[in-house]
């Protein structure tokens, strides 16, 4: 495991300051950011380090502060890459909002990576902390963007897959388009 602490803390602190500015929380957020970081310790992983494995209990989502995480699943005993999260992106969100969820993929650092593990306790404890609110807004926008991108692709596939008939993509389209 990579050394934790100093460097990861400083990287996360700067990242959260930028996040607060982006979501209009303004300046003077230091005390709020420290409160957030007392609840969520920044961590650092070296390239190739496995953070969690498919089937593990899902407790929290991973916010990439710097670096890159890769999600892979086993299909026919072979690892298949199904997603990557770059700086500012979030992965494993089911771990926050779905009780009893299991990891649907193995997460591996694809480069030296600093990240935060966001658990539901954070949101319960600090609903009025502007740094937490900015993090929640960022989380929401990131998930919405992912849904919109996937919906756009699924819709295209759906329109071309089964003109006039039912398609296996109907279910996906409903899931994605239902949020509309």
């Amino acid at each position: 495991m990579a050394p934790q602490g100093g460097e990861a803390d400083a990287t996360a602190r700067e990242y959260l300051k930028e996040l607060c500015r982006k979501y209009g929380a303004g300046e003077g957020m230091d005390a709020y950011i420290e409160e957030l970081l007392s609840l969520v310790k920044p961590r650092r992983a070296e390239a190739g380090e496995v953070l969690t494995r498919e089937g593990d209990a899902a407790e929290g989502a991973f916010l990439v502060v710097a670096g890159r995480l890769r999600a892979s699943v086993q299909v026919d005993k072979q690892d298949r890459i199904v997603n990557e999260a770059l700086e500012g992106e979030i992965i494993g969100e089911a771990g926050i909002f779905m009780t009893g969820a299991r990891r649907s993929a193995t997460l591996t650092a694809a480069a030296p990576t600093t990240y935060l593990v966001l658990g539901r306790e954070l949101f319960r404890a600090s609903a009025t902390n502007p740094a937490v609110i900015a993090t929640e807004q960022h989380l929401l926008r990131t998930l919405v963007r992912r849904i919109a991108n996937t919906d756009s692709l699924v819709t295209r596939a759906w329109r071309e897959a089964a003109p006039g008939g039912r398609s296996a993509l109907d279910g996906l389209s409903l899931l994605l388009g239902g949020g509309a």
Partner: protein
Amino acid sequence: VSPAELERHAERLLAAHALPAGDARTVAALLGRSAARRQNTGDVLFREGDSAQDLLFLLEGRARVLKRDHAGRDREIGSWYPPAVLGGLAVVDGAPRSATCVIAAPSVVAALDSETARRLLGEASAEGAHLRWLLLATAAETLADTTLHLREALAAAPQVGTSEGGKPELDILHALIERAQT
């Protein structure tokens, strides 16, 4: 819709989205800010391509979801049952509605206007926090269900590859699109 009914709907919303720590009275207050109305079968809640005017809570009844097919005809792809949050994604990112929603049985719907919803999303208040949690939970559930469907697609298309430097999950969908075209 009476305050007691709103609180009952709020409890169902929290239970449906695994938010046991949520406060039903706060969610009921959120629903109270919304215009709760009874809708008849055939009423159109919104159309694909419309700009997002409000965030909708389907509290009773049923809504059909339709999308335009390759020929521009509306085709039903499924239904939503209460309690459901509809149209939240378009409110967050300001994108046009990605589907049409039509009432399929006598229903109760609460509509929170977009401007109020966006203000609450950035607000340090209990209502703001509950709205963020409801939308986050809805989005996380959507993505989890999508992952399950994609896993099934992956299993059915083991030869699908990924391109160098691309986003693998999107590559899988691109590959599915290519397969659909052949």
